[in-house]
């Protein structure tokens, strides 16, 4: 349902081109859970932002249900049925949690519906719907609301960028259950967490902007350990 073809992304830095993503081709099937993992800075967020249209690829193409979306705007992609939960949730000056949920679901919701959206992510609606979505909310609260916004859209393709970040371990099973219960939708989750990797149908391992390995978690697992080590070693200058 989502197809990425020969995707590359370069930035111009220190008077030369730097390659962030290098010739990535991936095919995502309907109804499956994909977990993209890889060391910090390997290009995971960049890849999913390009899918959402937030960043523009240097070259390559993206197809969604057979339609070339490579040059569509963010909202055109959103309205075709793609959702993206940000790694760093955005805060606003003056918009309330309920305003955002109404926007995400394209309707004016009553209290009970808002309650359902927030209960899924373990928040009590009464305490949150009228709160401004600003930085007075804690990191974990913002992440949960970000998740609720994505779920409220009920789109066929959902992308979650490190949804577990800031969520207490105690709620972890609830989080994985959310993904398991998203039936008939395609889910791409960027994550470092074992518990999330374990629910993947496919794990995609990125390293230095390249797909190193794709397969079941058990197939990819040995490569993940190497990838992380490699990155740490090179960071310490011992490579």
């Amino acid at each position, binding site marked *: 349902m989502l197809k990425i073809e020969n995707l590359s992304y370069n930035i111009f830095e220190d008077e030369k081109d730097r390659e962030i993503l290098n010739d990535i081709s991936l095919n995502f099937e309907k109804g499956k859970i994909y977990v993209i993992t890889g060391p910090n800075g390997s290009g995971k967020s960049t890849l999913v932002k390009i899918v959402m249209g937030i960043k523009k690829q240097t070259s390559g193409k993206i197809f969604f249900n057979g339609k070339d979306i490579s040059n569509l*705007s963010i*909202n055109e992609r*959103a309205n075709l049925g793609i959702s993206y939960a940000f790694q760093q949730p955005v805060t606003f*000056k003056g*918009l309330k949690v309920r*305003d955002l949920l109404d*926007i995400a679901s*394209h309707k004016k919701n009553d209290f009970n519906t808002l309650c359902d959206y927030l209960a899924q992510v373990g928040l009590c609606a009464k305490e949150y719907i009228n709160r*401004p979505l600003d930085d007075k909310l804690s990191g974990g609260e913002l992440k949960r609301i970000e998740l609720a916004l994505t779920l409220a859209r009920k789109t066929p393709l959902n992308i979650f960028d490190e949804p577990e970040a800031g969520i207490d371990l105690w709620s972890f099973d609830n989080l994985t259950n959310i993904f398991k219960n998203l039936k008939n939708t395609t889910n791409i989750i960027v994550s470092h967490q074992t518990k999330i990797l374990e629910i993947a149908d496919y794990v995609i391992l990125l390293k230095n902007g390249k797909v190193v390995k794709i397969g079941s978690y058990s197939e990819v697992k040995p490569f993940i350990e190497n990838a992380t080590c490699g990155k740490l070693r090179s960071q310490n200058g011992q490579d």
Partner: protein
Amino acid sequence: MDKIDKDLLEKITDLHKIELGAFNIRKNGQAIDKKSTKEIEIVPKKDKSGIDVFVKPNVKNKALHIPVIITMGGLNDLVYNDFYVGENSSITIVAGCGIHNSTSENSVHNGIHSFHLEKNSQVKYIERHIGVGNGSGGKILNPVTKIYQKENSSLHIETLQIGGVTSSIRKTFARLGENAKLEVQENILTTDEEKAETEFKVVLKGKKSSVEVVSHSVARNNSFQKFKSNLVGENDCFGHVECDGILLDNARIVSVPMIDAKDNNSSLVHEAAIGKIAGDELVKLMSLGLSQEEAENTIIKGFLMG
């Protein structure tokens, strides 16, 4: 009252669904209706245009509405309203001015207000300003507010000017006594060739007095806004001014901060940030399906009314 009058009145008072208590309605330079209550007495001034309002001591949670409407061009309205709020009283005052001008002559309203808050009194003052009507004549507002707060009193001011006002110069002066607290939230939208200027001077005279001013401005097209504030700390006191502006098109916003800590126990802060609409806010809303224009309007509406 005709339809234009009613529309204007609604626009400047609808947000505040408080039971209508005492009121005074002024139209085209004349007081057209008024009602005093046993707690709030409205007395027309004898020497000039305007009213004196006396709120008795120990009055709790009452409301006073004092809307002004102008539906003609060529009027230069000058009015003096003085409020005396007794000890321990708490009231909400809803003021505001709606100008509907479809002529080619200017309509001007200059409202000169003074607030005298006795010990322990609490006042919430809500003021909305709008201009409508498509005549070429200006819709001009120049409010002046003088505030004198005694011990432990608190005043919360909300000012909303949401477009259509050709030009406004808003001047506020306050002097705060011991432990007095002043909060101001000012939200202003200017479009086209409009100009809006705000000037605050707050003297923190009393020990533990505090002031908090939050200004949100949105300037579109070729409009211009200027925000000037001056806090003077004369005691162990706290003052915070936050001026946040969103610029669109060719608009301009100027923020002029001045803080003067005369007493070395005063703590005074002025923060100002002016810039384009935040890119990440736009991106987030577009990723939820809004077009760029819808996203911009949603952000601006939240920023001004949220």
